[in-house]
C-alpha cells in the first residue's frame, strides 16, 4: 500500500466522509493542509473572516442538513477563536468536526509560537477530542471523530494535528466501519418501557407532549405527528423543538418556558402526564423547579441517559433514539384497539380548558401606527415568506424570542438558533452555512443591532461566495433583552445596554458591496421586506423599531412558570 503524508490522509479521509464544504481560515500550522486541499481541488473551501464565523457556519450547515459540519483553522489564536462556536454546537448537540493545526510535536509544551493546549481548553465543550501525535493514528482518528460526532447524541469533535504529523507518512487505510468498545450509544429503546409509557398515557386525563431538539435531530417529526394526532394530545415545544411539530397545527400550543405561550405554561402546570421527547427540562423551560408540573407523571424519551432524571424525577425513562421510540410507541398505541374517536372524546374536556387559555392570552402586542413594532416586522416576514420554504436563523435576545413567538415553523430544520449557549453573533455566520448547503433557498437571519455587530465581518465571506443571505436587523439601539431585565428588575437603570453609537448598517452593507435597505416608518416595512427578500445579493434590511418594546409573556428567572408577566 502506498504511503501518504498526513496532509493527504486528511484530504482523502474527508472525501471518504463525503465532505463537500469546509469552513476555515489558514495559518502557519495548517498551511500544508491548505496546500493539499487546493491541489486536490475537490472540496469546496469557504474562507471566513474570523474563526468563530467558521464554526457557526459549519454548525448552521450541519443543523440545516443533518450532516457533519467541518472547520479547519490554525494553531494558537486560530484554535482559541473556535471555542465559542464549539461550545455553541456542544450545547445544542450539533455534529461537527473541527481540525486545528498544532506546533510540531517536538515543540509541544514549550510555549512555542502560536502554541495553545486546545485539546485541554475544549475538553469540557466537545463530545470528544484528539491530539494526534503519530501519523499512523490519523486515519482511524478521523473516522472515529466523524462517527462520534454524528452518532448517539451528536456533538462537536476536535482533532489537533501537529505540523510534523501533517508531513510524516503512513499507509492510508480508511476503515469502512468502526467499533469502539467504550462508546456504544443506545439507540433501540426497551419494549417494556414503551409498554409502561403506554399504560400511563391510557390512564392520563390531561396529557401534554413536550418536545425538544432531539426530535429534530433524529428526524422524528412524522412519528411525533402520528402519535399526537392519534391520541389527540396537545404539543408544546422548546425553542430547539420548533418546527418538529407544525406551528400552524391546531394541536400546537407553541413554545413553552420563559417566553413561551401562556397556554403552554398553563397546560404544563395543570397536566397529569408529560410525554417528554428529546427535551431536557432546562431551567428556561421549568422555571422554579419545585413548582414545575406538580401533578404530572413523566415519560421521558432521550438518547442521552444523562438528560433523564437530571432536573426532574421521571416515572418512565426511555433511553433511545426518539424516532425509534416514537415508532414503537405509535405501534403500541394503534395496536391497543382504542379508536381515534375514543381519544377525541377522552381529552375533550382538557381541550376545552386549553382553548380557553389560548383565547385568554395568545401571543400579542400593543399595535401602534406611529412606530415600527418588532412583532409586526416578524408577522409581515412570516406572511411574505411562509410559502417560500425558507430557513430562518436568529441572533440572541429579543429578536430571537419574537421570531420564536410570531413566526410559525411548520417543518424541522427551518429555525436555526443558538438555544443552549445563547450565542450573540451566531445567526449570520450560521445563515452563511445554511446558504452554502441550499444555494437556492431563501435564508434569513433575524438580528438585533447588538448581535449583528459580533460577526458583521462575515459580510465579506457572504459576498465573496455570492450568497444572497438576507439580514433583518431589528434596531432598538439597545441590548434589548438585557435592557428588558433592567426595566423590570433593576428600576430601569440601563447600565451598559444603551448604545451611544450605532453604525449606519445600510452603509456598512454597501461598503461590502451588499444591498442595504432601511425602514423607519410603519408604512415602509412591507416595501423594504419585499425589495429585500427579492434581492439576489446579500441584503441588509434595517428596521428602526420601538426602542423599549418588551418580550411577553415572561416568567421572571427563578419564578414558577405560572407567574407570567403578560403584555
Amino acid at each position: 500500500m502506498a504511503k501518504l503524508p498526513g496532509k493527504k490522509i486528511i484530504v482523502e479521509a474527508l472525501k471518504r466522509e463525503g465532505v463537500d464544504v469546509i469552513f476555515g481560515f489558514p495559518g502557519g500550522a495548517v498551511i500544508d493542509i491548505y496546500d493539499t486541499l487546493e491541489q486536490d481541488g475537490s472540496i469546496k473551501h469557504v474562507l471566513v473572516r474570523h474563526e468563530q464565523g467558521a464554526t457557526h457556519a459549519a454548525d448552521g450547515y450541519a443543523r440545516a442538513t443533518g450532516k457533519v459540519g467541518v472547520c479547519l483553522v490554525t494553531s494558537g489564536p486560530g484554535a482559541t477563536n473556535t471555542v465559542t462556536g464549539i461550545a455553541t454546537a456542544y450545547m445544542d448537540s450539533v455534529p461537527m468536526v473541527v481540525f486545528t493545526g498544532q506546533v510540531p510535536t517536538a515543540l509541544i509544551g514549550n510555549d512555542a509560537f502560536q502554541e495553545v493546549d486546545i485539546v485541554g481548553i475544549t475538553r469540557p465543550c466537545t463530545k470528544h477530542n484528539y491530539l494526534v501525535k503519530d501519523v499512523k493514528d490519523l486515519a482511524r482518528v478521523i473516522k472515529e471523530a466523524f462517527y462520534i460526532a454524528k452518532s448517539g447524541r451528536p456533538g462537536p469533535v476536535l482533532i489537533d494535528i501537529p505540523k510534523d504529523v501533517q508531513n510524516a507518512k503512513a499507509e492510508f487505510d480508511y476503515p469502512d466501519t468502526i467499533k469502539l468498545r467504550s462508546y456504544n450509544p443506545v439507540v433501540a429503546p426497551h419494549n417494556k418501557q414503551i409498554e409502561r409509557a403506554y399504560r400511563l398515557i391510557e390512564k392520563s386525563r390531561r396529557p401534554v407532549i413536550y418536545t425538544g431538539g432531539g426530535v429534530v435531530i433524529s428526524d422524528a417529526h412524522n412519528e411525533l405527528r402520528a402519535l399526537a394526532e392519534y391520541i389527540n394530545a396537545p404539543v408544546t415545544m422548546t425553542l430547539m423543538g420548533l418546527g418538529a411539530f407544525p406551528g400552524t397545527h391546531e394541536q400546537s400550543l407553541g413554545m413553552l418556558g420563559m417566553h413561551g405561550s401562556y397556554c403552554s405554561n398553563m397546560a404544563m402546570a395543570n397536566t397529569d402526564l408529560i410525554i417528554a421527547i428529546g427535551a431536557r427540562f432546562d431551567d428556561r423551560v421549568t422555571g422554579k423547579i419545585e413548582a414545575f408540573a406538580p401533578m404530572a407523571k413523566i415519560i421521558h424519551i432521550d438518547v442521552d441517559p444523562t438528560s433523564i432524571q437530571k432536573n426532574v424525577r421521571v416515572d418512565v425513562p426511555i433511553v433511545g433514539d426518539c424516532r425509534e421510540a416514537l415508532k414503537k410507541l405509535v405501534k403500541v398505541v394503534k395496536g391497543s384497539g382504542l379508536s381515534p374517536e375514543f381519544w377525541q372524546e377522552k381529552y375533550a374536556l382538557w381541550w376545552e380548558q386549553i382553548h380557553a387559555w389560548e383565547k385568554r392570552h395568545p401571543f400579542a402586542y400593543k399595535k401602534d401606527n406611529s412606530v415600527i413594532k418588532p412583532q409586526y416586522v416578524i408577522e409581515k416576514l412570516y406572511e411574505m415568506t411562509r410559502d417560500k420554504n425558507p430557513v430562518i436563523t436568529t441572533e440572541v435576545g429579543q429578536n430571537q424570542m419574537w421570531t420564536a413567538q410570531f413566526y410559525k415553523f411548520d417543518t424541522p430544520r427551518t429555525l436555526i438558533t443558538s438555544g443552549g449557549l445563547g450565542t450573540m453573533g451566531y445567526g449570520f455566520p450560521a445563515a452563511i452555512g445554511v446558504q452554502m448547503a441550499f444555494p437556492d433557498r431563501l435564508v434569513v437571519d433575524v438580528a438585533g443591532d447588538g448581535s449583528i455587530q459580533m460577526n458583521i465581518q462575515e459580510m465579506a465571506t457572504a459576498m465573496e461566495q455570492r450568497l444572497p443571505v438576507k439580514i433583518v436587523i431589528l434596531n432598538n439601539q439597545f441590548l434589548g433583552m438585557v435592557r428588558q431585565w433592567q426595566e423590570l428588575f433593576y428600576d430601569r437603570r440601563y447600565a451598559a445596554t444603551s448604545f451611544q453609537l450605532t453604525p449606519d448598517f445600510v452603509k456598512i452593507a454597501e461598503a461590502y458591496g451588499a444591498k442595504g435597505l432601511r425602514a423607519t416608518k410603519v408604512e415602509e416595512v412591507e416595501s423594504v421586506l419585499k425589495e429585500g427578500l427579492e434581492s439576489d445579493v446579500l441584503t441588509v434590511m434595517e428596521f428602526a423599531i420601538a426602542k423599549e418594546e418588551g418580550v411577553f409573556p415572561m416568567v421572571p428567572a427563578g419564578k414558577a412558570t405560572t407567574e407570567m408577566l403578560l403584555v
Partner: protein
Amino acid sequence: MKHTLSVLVENCPGALSRITGLFSGRGFNIESLCVAPTLDPTLSHLTLVTRGDEFIIEQIIKQLNRLVDVYKVIDVSEGEFVEREMALIKVRAEDETRAEVLRMCDIFRCKVVDVSPKTYTVEVTGPESKLKAVIELLKPLGIKEISRTGTIAIVREKKTI
C-alpha cells in the same frame, strides 16, 4: 452517602483529566482517587470515592459512562465489597518511644519498612477507619511525614453457589 466507584477507562492521554474535569465542571466532589494499570495494558483501572444522594450518584455514573473513553463503571459500594487503603508513616522513634512504636505496629499488624537512628517508617494497610486509628495513636509520638494512597476496592464474590 459515600460511594466507591470502580471505573475502567481507555489507557490514553487525557482520559484521566476528562474524568477529573467532569467532576470539577459539574460540581461533584472526589474524596479519593487511585489509578493503576490492569492486566489488559490498554485499560486503566480507577477507584474513585465520592459523596452524594442517589440522584447525584446516578448522574455521576451516567456522566462517566457518557465519556467516550470510559469502558465501564461499577458502583462497588452498592453491594458487599472489600476496600483497602495504605499509608507509609514516618514516626519519631527515639529511646523510650522506640519500643512503643513497635508495640503499636504489632497490635495493628503494621510493618516497619525503613529504620533510621531517629525514626521508623511504618506501613499500614486496611480500611480507612484502621488507618485513622493508627494515625491517631502515633500522633502523640511525633509523626514526621505521611504518604497515603487512595482507596481501592473490589466486589466480594458470592458466598453461595
